[in-house]
């Protein structure tokens, strides 16, 4: 029987050999992947053993870690919860991280989670190591003003410092409370999450950065820019008609209210802008052609994803437009779509001499001892054609003047602030059941703003709904300078 036993022993050796090989593969080759797998609780426990750095607005932490009892040594808290929720995101056992909690995870933990050492001392809690504090560019008053001015309405407000691209406010309604999502009790998390997921108003959606809307007449800023860059000037005259008969179709484009924009004869480009004259802009769009319009839109960053700490949806100006679509697109309808964040950048560019800046929300990073270790480096947004120069300084100045006129005596008067040079453009995009109201503008060189209120209600206009919100936000911004 010995030969059989020898063969059996070889078979058993093969089985054990397979165990050894497999164990080596698991422990050495796929070891790191397994050790850092998102569902591996050890990753979270290690992470929760670190005093995660706070997110700071002004002097106040809007997200901070406080020590607790139990397996997880720190709990994440959000003192102002919903006001900053779309910025901070949540930091959750079950859902992992979102928002800046995710984007800035390395800074907040002090190092990449993947290389958190597993040495004994650290696990025993002997070497306390805290994460870095991240100070945001957000101005608490502006953020609060955005919240208050929206007054519970669905919509978004983004305010930016034109010269640097520093985001002063980024607020969207509806919002959510990140606190229960950051609980240490999975049931609390799951219940809160289910409620948010089931909410038809989609409170988890950041309407300031993640959702695009038809810009309506605020897109006329870009059409005007294209016209000025093509050699026209604010005094260039156009026929003032109540109806623009779109070539190649039976459809036509009418002005808001159905009438003419001026005296029914002629109207200057500046006036057409000021009163937001659809017939003129439809004709102008067709006259300039879709390539010129797209080129200008892209110089302002359309069809490019804006760089930002958080993910921003890409604003779209579609390609290969036929003439009817082009006429519609020129007044910001059809398939043109943009985010509030992007239009705040566009307004900032106009206020900033035509230079498109990159948005940023991190001002500086400080280590646990308070020493600055990194600072924001404002820069131009170089991806779009023109490398961040959206229009010439001359065109920017002309656009700026036209926007000032719009607030002084056009559709945007509701945004005017006494003693402050406010410029802007209203938009009322006809989509869905009720229009999307926009206001895009600036106050001097201090603040640029974009306000979008989708589904603003029957008869709502950008001038009526969005401009007063912008005014409140701009005023808060100017007062803070």
């Amino acid at each position, binding site marked *: 029987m010995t030969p059989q036993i020898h063969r059996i022993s070889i078979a058993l050796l093969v*089985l054990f050999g*397979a165990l050894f090989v497999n164990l080596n593969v698991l422990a050495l080759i796929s070891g790191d*992947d397994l050790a850092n797998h998102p*569902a591996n609780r050890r990753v979270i426990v290690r992470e929760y053993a670190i005093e995660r750095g706070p997110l700071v607005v002004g002097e106040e932490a809007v997200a901070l870690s406080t020590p607790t009892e139990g397996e997880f040594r720190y709990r994440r808290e959000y003192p102002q919860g919903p006001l900053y929720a779309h910025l901070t995101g949540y930091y959750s056992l079950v859902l992992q991280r979102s928002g800046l909690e995710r984007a800035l995870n390395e800074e907040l933990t002090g190092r990449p989670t993947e290389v958190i050492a597993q040495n004994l001392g650290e696990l025993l809690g002997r070497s306390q190591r805290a994460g870095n504090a991240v100070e945001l560019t957000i101005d608490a008053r502006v953020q609060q003003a955005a919240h208050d001015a929206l007054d519970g309405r669905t919509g978004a407000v983004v305010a930016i410092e034109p010269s640097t691209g520093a985001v002063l406010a980024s607020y969207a309604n509806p919002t959510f409370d990140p606190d229960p999502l950051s609980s240490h009790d999975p049931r609390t998390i799951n219940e809160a999450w289910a409620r948010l997921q089931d909410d038809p108003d989609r409170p988890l959606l950041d309407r300031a950065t993640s959702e695009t809307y038809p810009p309506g007449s605020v897109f006329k800023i870009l059409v005007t820019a294209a016209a000025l860059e093509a050699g026209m000037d604010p005094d260039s005259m156009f026929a003032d008609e109540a109806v623009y008969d779109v070539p190649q179709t039976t459809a036509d484009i009418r002005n808001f209210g159905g009438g003419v924009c001026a005296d029914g004869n002629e109207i200057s480009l500046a006036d057409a802008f000021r009163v937001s004259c659809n017939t003129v802009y439809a004709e102008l769009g067709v006259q300039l052609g879709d390539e010129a319009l797209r080129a200008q839109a892209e110089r302002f960053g359309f069809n490019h994803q804006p760089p930002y700490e958080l993910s921003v949806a890409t604003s779209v100006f579609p390609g290969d437009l036929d003439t009817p679509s082009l006429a519609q697109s020129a007044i910001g309808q059809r398939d043109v779509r943009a985010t509030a964040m992007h239009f705040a950048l566009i307004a900032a560019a106009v206020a900033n001499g035509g230079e498109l800046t990159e948005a940023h929300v991190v001002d500086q990073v400080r280590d646990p001892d308070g020493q600055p270790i990194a600072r924001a480096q404002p820069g131009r947004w170089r991806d779009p054609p023109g490398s961040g120069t959206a229009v010439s300084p001359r065109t920017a100045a002309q656009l700026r003047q036209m926007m000032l006129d719009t607030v002084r005596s056009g559709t945007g008067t509701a945004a005017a602030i006494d003693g402050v040079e406010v410029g802007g453009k209203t938009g009322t995009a006809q989509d869905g059941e009720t229009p999307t109201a926009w206001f895009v503008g600036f106050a001097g060189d201090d603040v640029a703003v974009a306000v979008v209120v989708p589904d603003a209600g029957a008869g709502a206009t950008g001038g009526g709904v969005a401009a007063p919100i912008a005014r409140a936000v701009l005023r808060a911004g100017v007062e803070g300078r």
Partner: protein
Amino acid sequence: MTSPEGSSAAIRAREARLLAGAVVITATASAILGWSHSPQLPPTTVITVMALIVIAVVAHVAVRAAAPHADPTLLPTVLLLNGLGLVLVRRVDLATGSELAAAQTVWTAVSVGVFCAAVLLVRRVRDLARYQYTFGLLTLVLLVLPLVPGLTAGVINGAQLWIDVFGMRFQPGEVAKLTMVVFLAGYLERNRALLAVATQRVGPMLVPAARHLAPVVLAAGMALVIMAGLRDLGTALLFFGAFIALLYVATGRLAYPAFGAAAFGLGAWLAYNLFGHVRVRVRIWLDPWADITGAGYQLAQSLFAVGTGGLTGTGLGFGRPQDVPFSATDAIFVVIAEELGLLGATAVLLLFLVLVTRGLRIAVRARDEFSTLLAVGLTVTFAIQVFVIVGGLTRLVPLTGITLPFVSYGGSSLVANYLLLALLLRISDETRAAAVGATSRRPATGRGSMTRRRTTGSDDTTGVNR
């Protein structure tokens, strides 16, 4: 003495040194675990080590008295595994708040008591063959016990394997594993000639006559019944694997393993199609990540633990056994892999390999066929058990719940495996005692077991396997 292995005194002295080594390693591990959780060593650490020393001494004395010629490596290897098991169960206690370590220490003492009794009482292993049918019947009884109303502890973790007697929970299947091997060894010793000779030629293969295949089919059927009735895939695989290995060893006919593999394949296919829990197991095996919070949770947690352990592990006391389901019982191997790393897990696997190779060596050298078959059967059962659970936890094969011998928490498993050890030691002792006797009459004939076995005169049927 001129025996190449030295005198029985030398053999036992080596065993004593190895036992001391096993105690030192266990004591060190126990101390490291204690220090990982508090600056002062908890009393449990000392108690565990003291208990282990007493157990080692008692077992060693029993072996000296009853099996002085037995292989000196088996007992220390087992004691080391058992000691590490105690430390690891204590480790799981610390993590989960359970209190299993004390019970496991008591079970260790009981098991070693049973071991000593077995070593002392089983004077001639060969005599067990006389009771083969008793053992066969006992196997069946033990297997169905968990289904008997009044005894059964019900379905636990999806399997019905336990009985409650006098307030104690027992898993009769662990002992059934041994009784079945005793029965099979006896049955095959008697029938091996017939099973080997009666063949028909089918194609290139010699196939046993249909009626001689009946036992194989029966075994496959029994495995299926166990799978269906007890929902215990691991035990089924164990029984079947041991049976096929024994058939092959007894007859030398490759047709048996070939046919056995086919039968098992068919059985597995049937099981897959008949039983939902089998399908679930296979699906998890193929993709544990698909249902990571549900059915795949256990396997995923096992893999996380192994991956986290990496090469050197987190260190004793610094892993997270609380994340792994059944970490004190079925999944204790991944606690080793996480805290002691690939190196520690490899060391433990090597300890098992030592037991397996020693077991097979004892089988080869045994002086009668019953003992050979018994040693092969016990060793193969043991090896398959280690393979099934370690392979299952590391996703080499579908995961089925079964204990890691000597290491997992569980009294039945511990008692059964110490009985297995007792039998192997008895066989080893008889073999070497006889060899020593033979060499004292004749010049040493080297290490050839064939030569030695021929002198025993029990070789009347060996013609079939040459």
